[in-house]
């Protein structure tokens, strides 16, 4: 069995090569697709046409697209994604610094979403057509229909402005607290393992609202999917037969859940990519200072090197999550390795 899984992993990794190539091409083209030249932004509003052309030449923008792509790709492979014109720092350095900050937020957000979503979806499917199901379905559909940025604002209005439970939506931690030494770059994790508990408490308090927002909104999507998958498996011949063999209702629900898992895990992957977009916007609202905020601010400020790097990281991250989801499915579902 282990051997089968190893071969499956190799096969999936091989598939990743053309995908990553596609991701890199798209990343490169996306930024060039627009009709505004990066040089115009760099040069500023008072620059003359000659100055702009000088900068274009300096940035290599006067060469043909394939040449530009090749230059960009060969630099990117070596870890050089250019320099941000806003901060004047190497893009790779900035991305690496912000990545763990975002991963921490998304990690908690998606974990919460999976817990919420699966619990609600399963409860709804088990009580299919009953009162619990009706109520949960309405709540779920409302959650699916709330745009994340508005949901985040409502959370702030309620938990910060009205109740005063949550800290102000301004960053990851109370100002003035000592920061823990860098271990992973994830503040909660770092401050707990290094024993900075005051910082950890503040970091958790700051994390609660944005993570909860992501959890509730993406959790609704998962709940919808989980209900559909569970309804399907609960009505399957396998469940009918298990009942006929005297399996208890609890056993039947567990059986249906296990059989729904392969589909669900595949969906978790998609949800994660959904959460990346939503989390980026939440970062903006909570001044989180992670990858998402960096990327979105770069997008609105036409900081093209950062935008390219940001999109590349997002693409690679999504591809990696899909890969992990597929591997987990392969590990639990003996049917997958057959293909």
């Amino acid at each position, binding site marked *: 069995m282990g051997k089968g899984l190893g071969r499956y992993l190799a096969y999936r990794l091989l598939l990743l090569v053309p995908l990553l190539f596609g991701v890199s*091409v798209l990343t490169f083209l996306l930024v060039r697709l*627009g009709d505004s030249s990066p040089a115009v932004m760099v040069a500023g509003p008072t620059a003359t046409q000659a100055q702009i052309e000088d900068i274009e030449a300096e940035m290599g923008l006067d060469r043909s697209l394939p040449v530009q792509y090749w230059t960009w790709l060969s630099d990117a492979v070596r870890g050089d994604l250019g320099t941000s014109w806003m901060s004047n720092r190497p893009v790779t350095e900035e991305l690496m610094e912000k990545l763990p900050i975002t991963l921490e937020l998304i990690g908690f957000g998606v974990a919460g979403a999976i817990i919420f979503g699966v619990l609600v979806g399963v409860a709804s499917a088990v009580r299919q057509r009953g009162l619990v199901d009706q109520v949960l379905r309405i709540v779920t559909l*409302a959650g699916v229909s709330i745009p994340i*940025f508005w949901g985040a604002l409502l959370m702030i209005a309620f938990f910060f402005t009205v109740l005063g439970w949550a800290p102000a*939506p301004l960053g990851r931690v109370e100002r003035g607290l000592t920061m823990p030494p860098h271990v992973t770059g994830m503040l909660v994790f770092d401050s707990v393992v290094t024993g900075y508990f005051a910082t950890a408490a503040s970091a958790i308090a700051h994390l609660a609202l944005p993570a909860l927002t992501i959890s509730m909104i993406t959790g609704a999507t998962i709940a919808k999917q989980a209900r559909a998958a569970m309804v399907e498996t609960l009505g399957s011949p396998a469940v009918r037969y298990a009942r006929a063999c005297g399996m208890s209702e609890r056993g039947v629900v567990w059986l249906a859940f296990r059989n729904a898992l392969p589909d669900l895990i595949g969906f978790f992957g998609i949800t994660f*990519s959904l959460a990346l977009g939503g989390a*980026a916007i939440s970062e903006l609202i909570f001044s989180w200072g992670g990858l998402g905020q960096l990327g979105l601010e770069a997008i609105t400020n036409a900081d093209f090197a950062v935008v390219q790097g940001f999109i590349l990281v997002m693409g690679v991250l999504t591809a990696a999550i899909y890969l992990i989801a597929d591997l987990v499915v392969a590990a639990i579902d003996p049917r997958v390795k057959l293909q």
Partner: protein
Amino acid sequence: MNDDAVASARPMPAPGTPPANVDPGEVGRLRAAARGMWRFMTSSMAAFTGTVIVLVFVVVGALADVLVPTDPLQVFGSDLLEPPGADHWFGTDGNGMDVFARTIHAIQIDLVISVTAVAISIVVGVALGLIAGYRGGWFEMVLLRLMDVLQAFPALILALAVVAASQESMTAVIAVIAFLDTPVFIRMTRGQVLSLREAMYVEAARSTGNKPWRIMWRHIMPNTLPPLIIQTAVRLAWSVMIVSSLAFVGVGIQVPTPEWGAMIRHGSAFITSGQWWPSVFPGLALMLLVLGFNLLADAIQDHLDPRKD
């Protein structure tokens, strides 16, 4: 069962205005469509609520100028951030504009962008899906690989990057949403074609020498219609959400154009100081419209496939 649902998805003719110069057969069909629509609406709470929400938005959006004559761009100089009251039902925003008028007038722009984008993506997606499913070969291969790559990006971030890089924002928003919606329709149509290609009646049509496009149009298209209708509702919900998300981040539609996302962005600055109305009301409208589309999608699915419950 299927015919009912297909009929029900056709827009209902405006009540009391029989369309001019149509033959009796046409009237019969319209009446049947209206009846199907009515049966769908009354089939469940979700169907009823969804239909009502979407219809109200469409009507109010179309008649916004008549129903709410207040100019959404008019600045009431002395009334900055006025709370909801008799003068301004939803209050005024940070520029002193009437939030109610802006929320209502924003329906138009959000609906027009979404409907246009989804319509484009249906036409392109169904056509490409039909060709890919029916002809296969390298065309299908390339198309599928391209969509795989596209799927590897969070759609919202992709949209943001593209729209930010272009200057003609309205066109860019429509184009990028249509672009992101298209793969859904390609996949769906292709899947349907693949499952139907070997079906008996298509086989029969082919063996009697029908042209490929004719087979597609007459035999395959009607079968792809039910899932197409469901997806249309789902994608409309998603598109409305993306339009306003873009505006919220600050690309695409810009203030002072009345657009929900842009209004929420502008209003978000005041939420921590307790002035909730400039951002809450447009958000509520946005959520309601998205909810309406989602309810419709769910209800149509239940209506077409009652076996599930």
